[in-house]
């Protein structure tokens, strides 16, 4: 197998590639700014320079030349090479800063160069704390600067587009953002203008940077030159907790990180997932963090009469549902599952009403044809359409649903987290003769029309799975505490610096932002039931149940989802067997 020597250690490689990526894969350290594994290689930051050489090959004897001490004779390239653009080659010898003084010096020199025109305003810069320039300067940079002149001044706080703000002085001209719009989002909206140290990225004259993926440039910007107009100045990176999750605003289900502080989700960033979204996600999914924080339903809401909803206790909510159920027979109940809710919640809904003898399980897919772009935005607006389908809910279109309600006149309509009144032609008049219970996360037209509203957790508060448009099942991890969960007790929840070391008085954690809600499945476990099929203690347990019942989910488990970053389901199996 071909081999390569890095800092006198031997490594083998199988596939051709570049030295820098190979080193990163091996966990070796090398500083770099402009390189990004998903973009082309411009080799312009010159930070990843290494000393490289090839062994001298004796063509006649067909062996490598050997010196007196028995080592291979190495012929080094006259200049330092950038590791990002250097191809792996059999016998290649690499010396990094670990073993070569010149490389070490060159890396420090380069950082000194980068910093001479950089404003060094880290204390007021949003990137501080997650800034490659800051990190690499501490690690590899010079002790000080010998630059004694006025720095070059460039435009600051330029609103490039609706979501992205540029500070040109911080820019180090790595061109990652330009390459992103050229190669990934293909909108070609950004370019570098001017020349030399006056360079900075911007849009064409009079154009807006309204790329639907524009915020990815903020993520890949190695400095604070591009910042999110929305997140800017909101929080320090080191004060936030970072929790893996899934984008629930779109059928594609991009893997995400939820960044929380004081039980508020402050931003959403993409999480690398080769099978779904690579390093990227659409802007729409990032702005969905508001859904987790604002307009939330806290405590059950009951409408005793036509006057309006009042808050009530959990006990009362359960008893009210119990009483209503006792008034009707099973075939007078219509259960509507939700492509917006998780697999577990839909399953719990189906199991609970299935035990009561209900057979009408429907769901209305939430697609908006023509909105998809074939990349990370799908026509499907809901994160779990395939999941509900896989659980045996019957797909129904808008007209049929309205007809079903108008003609069938179900006595009880149970809707799991789905704003049917808001997104369809369904109106309150259609529902006038029915008693409606809604499990909801946010106040909307449907919850306002409901007789009983049960507040349930969002994807930011529960561990639950979602099946995306391509049939990949992925799960979320609780990022926000509800009134009934605790970061220190739930080992799955991430603990930030402040959670570990802060006291009640100096950290950001207060009870103010904890919502009084529970996962939908938990509500069913609280209901009085004859069956013991509903005695779940966690969503993990529910998934075990599902895996045992539905062939589509056969090999799904939380552990496997965590390990493999989601599991690809074989959806065609879903017609095989339906559980009784």
């Amino acid at each position, binding site marked *: 197998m071909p081999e390569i020597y890095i800092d006198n250690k031997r490594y083998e490689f199988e596939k051709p590639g570049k030295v820098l990526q190979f080193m990163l894969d091996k966990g070796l350290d090398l500083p770099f700014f402009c390189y990004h594994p998903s973009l082309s290689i411009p*080799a*312009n930051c010159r930070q990843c320079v290494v000393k490289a050489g090839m062994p001298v090959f004796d063509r006649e004897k067909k062996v490598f030349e050997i010196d007196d001490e028995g080592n291979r004779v190495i012929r080094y390239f*006259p200049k330092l090479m950038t590791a990002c653009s250097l191809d792996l080659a059999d016998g290649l010898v690499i010396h990094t800063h670990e073993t070569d003084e010149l490389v070490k010096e060159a890396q420090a020199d380069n950082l000194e*160069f980068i910093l001479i025109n950089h404003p060094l305003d880290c204390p007021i810069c949003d990137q501080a704390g997650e800034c490659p320039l800051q990190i690499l300067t501490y690690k590899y940079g010079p002790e000080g600067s010998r*630059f004694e002149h006025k720095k070059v001044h460039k435009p600051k706080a330029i609103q490039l587009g609706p979501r992205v703000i540029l500070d040109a002085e911080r820019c180090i001209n790595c061109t990652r953002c330009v390459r992103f719009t050229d190669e990934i989002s293909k909108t070609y909206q950004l370019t*570098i203008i001017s*020349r*030399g*140290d006056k360079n900075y990225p911007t849009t064409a004259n009079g154009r807006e940077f309204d790329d639907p993926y524009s915020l990815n440039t903020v993520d890949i910007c190695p400095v604070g030159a591009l910042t999110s107009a929305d997140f800017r100045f909101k929080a320090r990176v080191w004060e936030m907790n970072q929790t893996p999750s899934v984008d629930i605003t779109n059928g594609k289900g991009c893997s995400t990180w939820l960044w929380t502080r004081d039980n508020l989700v402050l931003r959403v960033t993409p999480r690398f997932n080769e099978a779904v979204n690579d390093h990227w996600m659409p802007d729409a999914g990032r702005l969905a963090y508001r859904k987790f924080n604002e307009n939330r339903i806290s405590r059950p809401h009951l409408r005793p009469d036509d006057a309006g909803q009042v808050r009530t206790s959990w006990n009362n909510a359960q008893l009210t549902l119990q009483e209503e159920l006792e008034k009707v027979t099973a075939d007078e109940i219509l259960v509507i599952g939700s492509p917006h809710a998780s697999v577990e919640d839909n399953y719990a809904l189906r199991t609970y009403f299935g035990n009561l003898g209900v057979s009408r399980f429907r769901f209305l897919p939430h697609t908006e044809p023509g909105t998809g772009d074939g990349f990370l935005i799908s026509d499907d607006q809901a994160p779990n359409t395939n999941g509900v389908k896989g659980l045996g809910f019957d797909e129904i279109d808008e007209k049929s649903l309205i007809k079903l309600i108008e003609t069938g006149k179900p006595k009880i309509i149970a809707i799991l987290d789905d704003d049917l009144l808001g997104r369809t032609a369904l109106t309150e008049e259609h529902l006038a003769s029915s008693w409606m219970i809604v499990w909801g996360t946010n106040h909307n037209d449907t919850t306002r029309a409901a007789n009983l509203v049960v507040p349930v957790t969002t994807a930011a508060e529960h561990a639950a799975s979602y099946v995306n448009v391509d049939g990949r099942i992925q799960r979320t991890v609780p990022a926000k505490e509800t009134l009934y969960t605790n970061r220190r007790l739930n080992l799955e929840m991430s603990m930030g610096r402040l959670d570990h070391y802060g006291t009640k008085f100096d950290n950001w954690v207060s009870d103010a932002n904890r919502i009084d809600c529970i996962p939908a499945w938990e509500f069913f476990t609280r209901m009085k039931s004859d069956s013991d099929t509903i005695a779940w203690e966690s969503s993990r347990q529910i998934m075990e149940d599902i895996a045992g019942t539905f062939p589509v989910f056969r090999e799904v488990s939380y552990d496997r989802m965590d390990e493999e970053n989601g599991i690809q389901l074989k959806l065609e199996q879903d017609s095989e067997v339906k559980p009784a």
Partner: protein
Amino acid sequence: MSNDWKSYKPMLVPAIRDLHDISVYEKNNGYQALKKILKDRKTWTPANVVNEVKTANIRGRGGAGFNAGLKWSFMPEPDGKPRYLACNGDESEPGTFKDRKLFEFNPHLFIEGAIIAAYAMQIDVIYVYIRGEYRPFIQKLQKAIDQACEKGYLGKKILGSDFSVEMYTHMGAGAYICGEESSLMESLEGKRGYPRVKPPFPAQRGLWGRPTTINNIETLANVPLVMQHGAEWYLDIGPKTHPGPVLYGISGHVNRPGVYEYPAGMDIMTLINEVAGGVRGGKKLKALIPGGSSTPPLRADMLDGVTMDSESLREAGSMMGTAGMVVLDEDTDMVDLIWRISYFYDHESCGQCTPCREGTGWLEKTLRKIKDGNGEMRDLDLLLAICHRMEGRTICALADAAAWPVRYSIDRFREEFEKKCKKTVYAVA
């Protein structure tokens, strides 16, 4: 050499009236080399033409001095898809103004050379990238191209053969960096003029990812001479290691600045004193920048017996470059001069690579500080340190071009720099 040069008859820009007109050019042996090749294609297969040019050892006139025929031989075998010849007429280096003479007075010689080059490398599209400020010369060249098309030297089925080639002109937009071959290609493709990372080299992946050769205008103008008279004849002009006629662009403090055509390897003092009429005002010579602003300046006392060819100049401690000689008399303020050169490179750095983007600005600012009388002795060491960390650490050679004049002038004229610096004494610790 001695006095041979006095009897030398210019061949690149001969003194013939209206030579830019195709009928005059044809009367003076014009397009004979092309006809000779196309008439006897058995002898002059493309490979043989490449070999002939390689033997003639035409050193690239754009500054690097690389054997043009050797460069041509790097082109891969044709595969039926497009391949390109890009002609570099972007000359924008301070002190260089030779290609304009060709555009102005003898465009057909260059066109003929480019056609022969295209034939040798089996290329069917030629782009001529010209400095945008040369608007009148572009018009002249365009007129010459149109004439050549009319006469059947360009276009489909040239002179009745099955060889076809198109030639297009392209105006630069004022960026020095677009004279660098790979950013010239980027610019031709309609992109921002950023030099490309090598490898892949242009012969492997050039314009639009296809094999491309980039030659200087003057280099190509030498090709018809070689093909007409043979490589042996050509090698006899000037030194064998660097043969052929050269357009010397002499500027600065001389009595008769201008472009002069003489064989390569001319004695520098002869060029200054006899060709260009000596230093202006009878002053003493102080220094010479031999080949455009990026070549290291030489002190007058380093010029004894040095001739204008790559080898001799390398020994003397400089480079041939584009043979754009800048003559500097004893009144020249070297600090001011080097600052001005630095200012140019600061302005023209494309800003792609960190060391060049930041280094050129730093050099300029530091030199300005010294020039303005605010410099300190440590600034000289700092300048040398900046040069050291710029050289060889970037994608293209602009960083080297910016660093060399500074490094070598501090080296060779240090006392002048020191004179401008404040004598500061720092307390120990």
